């Protein structure tokens, strides 16, 4: 029972991270129709900047996370302007391949910046635990979940309530019409990249918090958000929250129980659970739980 409770909470923490990364993918996909394969590298760079504000300058964790997100938002906008803007109007998979190139470059830059030592972010959680009903819960998991939900909530409010958010949604639904209504579509693309990069940075900071430090190779964790957005639907923020939590909990439960009940599946089987879920989802519902079915005209 204690095992179940603590792995559920760990799953929620993981789910929060996946939801953040999923939202990062979804925002760019909705605006530009591109899947941003550079997200893992953005996440690592975000963790690096948060870490440097926290460790080198000694700012409090909250402030350094916000600053890290701001820096990454600027970097995201620059990437969009330099590498992605020229690809407007070209096939989506060409643009997605450009983000693969961006991924390689940023990953190397991140690896160089982090260096050979483990990266930490000077967070207040550490390995603190709380006891609930006899189960030992890591406070970082609870914090991850709550912070992720708050951040996604803020983005959701921004998109639904603000004037700019309305413009972004208009751009997502029809670029040419938005242009005709006087919306600066290019700026909306940049803004989407900025928000997405900031979300990835937050995910990076939360991933590093509560661990004993991360290396660049951890970046590939962010790709697990791809199954999340497949499950939730590529264009649904609500979907990526729900799917993030489902996949986070599924992965966490597998990590707890698979070594006991199905050891023949091998060590670290939990790592590929998201991908297996994705394959099953694609068999049953190719457009995810909340995604819009694509309508094609000849």
């Amino acid at each position, binding site marked *: 029972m204690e095992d179940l409770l603590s792995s559920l909470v760990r799953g929620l923490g993981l789910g929060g991270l996946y939801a953040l990364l999923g939202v990062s993918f979804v925002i760019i996909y909705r605006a530009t129709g591109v899947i941003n394969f550079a997200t893992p590298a953005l996440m690592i760079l975000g963790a690096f900047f948060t870490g440097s504000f926290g460790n080198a300058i000694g700012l409090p964790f909250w402030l350094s996370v916000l600053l890290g997100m701001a820096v990454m938002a600027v970097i995201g906008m620059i990437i969009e302007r330099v590498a992605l803007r020229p690809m407007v109007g070209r096939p989506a*998979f060409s643009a997605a391949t450009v983000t693969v190139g961006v991924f*390689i470059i940023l990953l190397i830059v991140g690896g160089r910046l982090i260096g050979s030592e483990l990266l930490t972010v000077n967070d207040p959680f550490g390995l603190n635990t709380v006891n609930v009903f006899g189960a030992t819960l890591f406070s970082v998991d609870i914090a991850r979940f709550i912070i992720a939900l708050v951040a996604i909530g803020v983005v959701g409010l921004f998109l639904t309530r603000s004037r700019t958010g309305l413009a972004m949604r208009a751009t997502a639904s029809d670029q040419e019409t938005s242009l005709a209504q006087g919306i600066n579509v290019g700026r909306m693309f940049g803004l989407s990249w900025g928000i997405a990069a900031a979300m990835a940075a937050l995910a990076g900071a939360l991933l590093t918090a509560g661990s004993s430090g991360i290396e660049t190779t951890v970046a590939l964790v962010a790709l697990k958000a791809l199954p999340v957005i497949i499950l939730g639907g590529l264009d649904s923020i609500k979907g990526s929250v729900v799917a993030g939590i489902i996949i986070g909990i599924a992965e966490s439960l597998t990590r707890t129980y698979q070594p006991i009940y199905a050891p023949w*599946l091998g060590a670290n089987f939990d*790592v590929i659970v998201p991908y297996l879920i994705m394959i099953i989802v*694609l068999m049953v519902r190719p457009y995810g739980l909340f995604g819009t079915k694509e309508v094609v005209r000849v």
Partner: protein
Amino acid sequence: MSNATASSHRTTRGRPQLFTSYAQETAIFNTRVKRNWVLVGILVMIVLPFFMQRDMVALITTVFIFAIGGIGLNLLTGYAGQVSLGQAFFLGVGAYTAAVLGGESRSGVIGLGWDMAIWLPLAGLVPALIALVLAPLAMRVRGLYLAILTLGLVFIGEHIFKEAKPITGGAGVGRAPADPVFLGFDLFANQTILGYRIDRFTIFYLACFVIFVVMAFAAKNFARSRFGRSFAAVRDRDIAAEVMGVSLLRTKTLAFVISSFYAGIAGALLSIVIGRISPETWNIFLSIDFLAVIFIGGLATISGSIMGAIFVVLLPKLVNALTPLIPGFGGVGEGGILNVFELQSIIFGLLIILFLILEPRGLYGLWLRLRNYFKAWPFSY
């Protein structure tokens, strides 16, 4: 009979663009110049290894192997328009099929020690079979969904490779690859032929070159066949193609299967060049390499895939040679701005971006521009 007449008065001298029949225009070599240059190229490539250093011979062998895998991916992504990040998985399956059938049984790994004449075709057929099983699933999704699905395949494959210890040796350990003994003739051992002693790298180079040439011509021929043209139709407008009677399921499945066959062969040969294969070899970055081969080389061209393979394989070597000339770069450790490996990767990423933005047709497009410039020379139009 009409074909014979058409070929008897092939291209008129001085008017290479004049085609008098459809068959003539769609021939593999539609101009005499093209055919002659390819023949010269083949001859040069056969003679070349005898005048080169060992590591260079091995490197160009890798170019052939990357070209085989690249051609396979180009049939799927370039011709049929189905983006796949799963090439590394199929390379891995091919490599392990070859290793199990053709390798030695040693320290807990299975190896049957069969002849290359058996394991080489099977190294292509087994991945093709797996692709056939996966195809109905992959064909349900389009575009970027397929890219994500195949990405998942690479991660799941890596896990299976790490866990299937009797086949792969397990994570971090790895196993020896297949022995390239073709009908009793060892292709990876020093041999004496007609009194001449030939280096084992040269022998394997020639073997890979022959396989590469056969597979490149097969692909070139396939692309102009009925199926090849249906690939292009599906890529350009899948629904319109379906309306015209091209079966989407069959065409996409065929593309997936053929692509995996090429990947399997490439994987089997690559494992021999690498020497010892560990499950971590077949990761997402290998898939990205192959994606770079076709995007830098040029989508939907066979010669483009070859140029891309040359570029992707030789680029690190070139960077290695050039970095000492630039102050601040180079070195293998932490010193300097970037070390050689980092510089290679960054240039690699940069080139993918630059080619996609500036010349979407890739190196093949650059070649077309160059050719057209000199065709019209000294006029600029």
